[in-house]
């Protein structure tokens, strides 16, 4: 029975070639735009997650949080308080297993001047472990050494953007003097550009030894955050809990909801950002989906015309013993065949379009199996939905009336 249906379907579709081709074209455009838009959206969210991953792998960041005092409803912004100290970082290093490295940092925004040039930039006080965790590499000069840390040396490493601002693009500032918050520092190196702008950019800042920063720049013992690299991705949550327990104990806080610090998990950040990306993908797909609906209406229009044209044939088939299911499945098969063929061609066209978008605009596009399966599913569903009404109409025709139809 199925092979009969297929044979009849292909036969009647090829009987009206130009009409079938035009109807299929509507579905092709719809499916192709859905495929292309999803791949653009997926490409964009992959770009975002790649950037987060480039900040370092398996990273936990402990930040000072606001502590709400009993009876005090005013709450400061996260990171504004000075509840973390270097000893917390030392305790984590000593007390928690399954971590590769701990890198406390101190940061502040200060005015930096060099012979008349000046800029306002972030000053990062770091330890030697920071370079490994953030996979920072040197373009010029050497990284900060343990010896410079203990002796509180006034040395500075510039981010490439800061170097460009202060000394001119591509200059070699190693050995030059700069003034940060009134103190003179000598430049010992420049980092390799990591890209990225705005928050989290590691190109527009100055690194100095952490001990130096506490003494000359911030003037107190608090630290801004602690970066912790966990040894494996599976242990992220476990280590996060361990650190939570350790710090609560150290800060003598019983109620975890009143913690004066917060631990940010890179995985959580990734989840948040990729859900943003997914929402964007869905939005793009929904817009493209409109053209798919238009294509579906085209299918319905063609099927209704076909049913009217073939009224006599339907009457004849009924008189020869076809029941209403035979008739409706014949017309339903035709509309599903149209959308299925359109879907397959649409996937190929959409895929080519995604490649063209990458070539022409440089935007990353990502083709996924699920977007292909989704499109095939949707196009077949459209065949069923928009073919159902014409098929029922054909099946319900009265054979006597249909045979008399001119």
């Amino acid at each position, binding site marked *: *029975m199925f*092979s*009969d249906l297929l044979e*009849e379907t292909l*036969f009647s579709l090829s*009987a009206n070639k130009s009409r079938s081709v035009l109807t299929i074209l509507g579905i092709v455009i719809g499916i192709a735009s859905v495929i292309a838009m999803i791949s653009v959206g997926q490409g964009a969210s992959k770009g975002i997650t790649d950037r987060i991953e480039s900040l370092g792998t398996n990273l936990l960041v402990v930040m000072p949080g606001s502590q709400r005092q009993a009876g005090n409803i005013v709450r400061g912004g996260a990171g504004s308080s000075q509840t973390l100290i270097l000893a917390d970082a030392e305790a984590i290093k000593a007390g928690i297993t399954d971590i590769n490295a701990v890198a406390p940092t101190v940061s502040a925004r200060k005015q930096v001047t060099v012979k008349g040039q000046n800029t306002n930039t972030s000053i990062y006080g770091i330890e030697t472990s920071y370079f490994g965790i953030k996979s920072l590499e040197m373009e010029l000069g050497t990284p900060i050494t343990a010896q410079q840390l203990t002796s509180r040396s006034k040395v500075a490493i510039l981010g490439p953007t800061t170097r460009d601002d202060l000394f001119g693009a591509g200059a070699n500032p190693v050995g030059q003097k700069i003034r940060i918050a009134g103190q003179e520092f000598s430049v010992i190196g420049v980092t390799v550009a990591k890209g990225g702008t705005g928050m989290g950019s590691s190109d527009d800042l100055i690194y100095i030894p952490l001990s130096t920063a506490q003494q000359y720049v911030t003037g107190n013992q608090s630290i801004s955050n602690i970066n912790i690299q966990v040894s494996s991705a599976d242990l992220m949550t476990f280590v996060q809990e361990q650190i939570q327990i350790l710090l609560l104990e150290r800060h003598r806080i019983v109620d975890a909801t009143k913690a004066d610090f917060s631990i940010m998990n890179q995985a959580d950040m990734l989840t948040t950002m990729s859900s943003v990306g997914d929402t964007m993908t869905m939005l793009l797909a929904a817009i493209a989906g409109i053209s798919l609906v238009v294509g579906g209406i085209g299918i319905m229009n063609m099927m209704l015309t076909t049913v009217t044209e073939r009224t*006599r*044939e339907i009457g*004849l*088939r*009924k*008189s*020869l*013993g*076809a*029941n*209403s*299911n*035979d008739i409706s499945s014949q017309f339903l098969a035709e509309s599903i065949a149209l959308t299925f063929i359109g879907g397959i061609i649409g996937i190929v066209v959409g895929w080519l379009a995604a490649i063209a978008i990458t070539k022409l605009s440089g935007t990353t596009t990502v083709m996924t199996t699920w977007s292909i399966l989704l499109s095939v599913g949707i196009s077949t569903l459209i065949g069923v939905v928009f073919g159902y009404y014409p098929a029922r109409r054909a099946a319900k025709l009265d*054979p*006597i009336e249909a*045979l008399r139809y001119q």
Partner: protein
Amino acid sequence: MMIKCKNISRTYQLGGDEFHVLKNINFEIEKGEFVAIIGPSGSGKSTLMNILGALDRPTKGTYLLDGKNVFDMNDEDMAQIRSQKIGFVFQSFNLLPRSTVLRNVMVPLIYNNKISKSTREEKAKKALRAVGLDEDRWTHLSNQLSGGQMQRVAIARALVNDPGIILADEPTGNLDSKTGAIVLETFKQLNEKDGHTLILITHDKNVAEHAHRIIEIKDGEIISDKQHKHL
């Protein structure tokens, strides 16, 4: 008894008025008979054919086909009756254009789930042989044939399921008298040689002459029912 019509009436509602197209029709047809139902246009003979062919139900009365009452059937059962017990031949042939002769003859077999796919072609060829259509025409498209050939293809299509009854509605109405005679001869052969039950609906007395029994109908009533020739 193949067909038994008892007090059959058919009424149409049209704009509030009732039209009594068939009034109290009674007759029986036995297996192997060749019956002509004759009457002028508007006499109700087409409505009677629709009822006999299980395309329509009587408003009142019983129509027994092989002992089953068609009045009680739903649409699906009626489709099955048409598929297995009835072969239609129409005035305007109603072949599928752009399809070959063989394919046209095989259409009823698609809807008969009692026949396996492998035997379809064999059955179609047998039916085409029975109506005497030249073998070299079988692969032609149906719209490349002459009227007489088309009607014989249509008869082969009606035969292909081995139905109990062949219902022909003005089968010679679109043919000239010479090809009409060939078609009528084909019917006669099918009845006399192969024993098919034939019901021929016509307004033409000369066509009706070929049958063995003539039922005359006028204004929805049977006005005469007589044996025409001895079997």
